[in-house]
């Protein structure tokens, strides 16, 4: 039973990570938003699975909020933003796709090396998925620094938050409830503020290509 639970959570974590890697593979905002939505759903499913096995009511709430907020609400808002200031369908990223994917794979390997000491500490059956969560964190960081469209950078940041949530879930079955709620609130506020700033960027620059943001260079 324990081993099946462990396998399933690792499966869920792999799905979450693969959706993150899809951000490096596919081009175009529609694909990115879809990948983020799928990732959030997979994350919510993993949270639900852990909630079922550990019987934690708080994790159920977290799973539901993840599904509603990041699986449904944010993709809708992102799609609306994309429709309003989509601009050209694809912008060439700083690093081309094939190289990005290989770097992404290497980052996952790096995450395994970094997370090695942590695996000795934990005795939970879900610990095998923690390196994958750390890998998602690294891959999301790479997405943020290597993509040119402001919208894609925001999606990368949201994927980063997913990775951290996954890490917390796998490592300690979640964090204290008050803190979790504070984190969600912060995430929502941060997202709304980013939306507003992107709107401003579109207004003043007529595009959301961050290469244009180069007036302050000294």
């Amino acid at each position, binding site marked *: 039973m324990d081993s099946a639970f462990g396998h399933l959570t690792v499966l869920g974590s792999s799905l979450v990570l693969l959706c993150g890697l899809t951000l490096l593979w596919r081009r175009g905002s529609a694909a990115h938003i879809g990948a983020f939505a799928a990732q959030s759903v997979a994350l919510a499913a993993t949270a639900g699975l852990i909630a079922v096995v550990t019987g934690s009511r708080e994790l159920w709430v977290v799973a539901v909020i993840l599904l509603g907020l990041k699986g449904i609400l944010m993709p809708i808002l992102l799609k609306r933003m994309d429709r309003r200031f989509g601009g050209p369908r694809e912008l060439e990223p700083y690093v081309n796709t094939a190289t990005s994917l290989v770097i992404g794979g290497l980052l996952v390997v790096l995450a395994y090396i*970094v997370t090695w*000491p*942590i695996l000795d*500490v*934990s*005795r939970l059956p879900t610990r095998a998925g923690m390196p994958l969560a750390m890998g998602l*964190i690294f891959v999301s*960081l790479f997405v*943020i620094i290597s993509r040119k469209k*402001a919208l894609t*950078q*925001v999606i990368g*940041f949201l994927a*980063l*938050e997913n990775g*951290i949530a996954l*890490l*917390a879930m796998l*490592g*300690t079955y979640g*964090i*204290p409830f008050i*803190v979790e709620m*504070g*984190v969600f*609130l*912060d995430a929502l*506020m*941060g997202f709304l*503020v*980013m939306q*507003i*700033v*992107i709107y*401003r*960027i579109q*207004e*003043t*620059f007529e595009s959301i290509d*961050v290469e244009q*943001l*180069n*007036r*302050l260079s*000294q």
Partner: protein
Amino acid sequence: MRLTYLALVGAPLAAALAAALVRPYLRGVGAAGALLSTLSLVAALRLAGQVLAGATPTWGPSEMMRVDALSALLAICVAFVAALAAWLGPGLGRDERYTPAQARRFRIFSSLFAFTMLIAVTANNVAIMWVAVEATTIASALLIPLHVSKASVEASWKYILIGSVGIALAFVGTVLGYFDYVHLAGERESALNWTSLMAAAPSMHPRVMALAFVFIVIGYGTKAGLAPMHTWLPDAHAEAPAPLSAMMSGVLLAVALYAIIRWKVVVDLTVGSTLPDRLLLVLGLASLAVAALSLIGQRQYKRLLAYSSIEHTGLMCVGLGLGPLGAFAALLHLVNHAVAKGMMFLLSGRILDRYHTTEMGEVSGLLRVMPVTGGLFAAGMLALAGLPPFGIFFSKLSLVRAGFATGHPWLMAFVLVLLLAAVIAMLAQINRMLYGAPPDGVRVGESNRWGLVPLALCAILLVAFGLGGFGAFQTLLDRAVAIVSR
């Protein structure tokens, strides 16, 4: 005790609410905000008094909030600079530069900004501290483009993206610390309290805590402006309106450093202080080097001040990595820098209003155009450059002594060379600004005389700190250092 704490954090919150609820904007709201910020400052001083008397006030379920000497010190700094910004910010006097809508937005978000910073420095629960620091990013990001322009929008985008990424990394570190505690002591309501972490620190796993600390330093270091995560700082601090820059440069960087300090104390007990010290030294030196090199050839005075902030944060970081003596230097530096930078940015706001340009080449004859402003500006530059009798001179001296005491003579030599380069760069520029003939079309004579009073007070404080400070302040500082270098 509880009332004082409520006054401390409740006052800015009330000011924000008042500004949000009253539409259209009335000058009375601004005045109320300024008075509330003074109330907050008085509360901070009272809390410091209670701490000095031996108490450690706590508040909230499972002691979420706790004020010890370090918190009290930071709270005073935050409340002071916030009060400066509230009294000298838009919306109080007859200001043609800002529309009522802009003034209202300023009042709401700057008060929220002050509120979140005060929560961050008085939080016992490290997760609440994290939430508050994240909230500071959100509160300030919307204020940077108060005057919408391509440059300010670009600055706010960089600020919120890089700041949020940094904070997210700090959260990874927090989660790892929680993970280690839980696997040691089991889940508990107070698991994320700093006091609990301190108690459990000696038995936590060194490798996990070392990894957590790396994430914490990189994460909160992004908010503090440490190189190489500093790229957002010059843009954000230069493009923001002057009172906001004063708060961001003066105290937000200090609050981020405070978060690093809180974690460092815990990690020092688990891992030993070699790794944390080395990490802080490396990052501090990198920031110092980047800032010193960028100060040479800087053409805009607000960016000059922003890079100077990076330089001083780097110095504070170096100090934190040099043991108890260095910690003393760092905290003294923190207080002096908060006052000095706050004053300087507010003065730069006045210069911008008069000259309508941010280029240093176009500002000349400052002493003739606005004598008091120019004089205070010169005094502030001298203070930031670390010349006596200002307090920063003594904190730099203590820093160098700490460096020699812990066996890093070559490091200190390198630091001194970089500081010298920075000083020369800054003083050369200020010289050009102060003297010479004023450009055409610039009105001569001070406007808004009363606004100079708080700034003159800052200058007096800087000299007072340099000449030995107040006895109570010294004791508070010593107690704070004792916490840091346990």
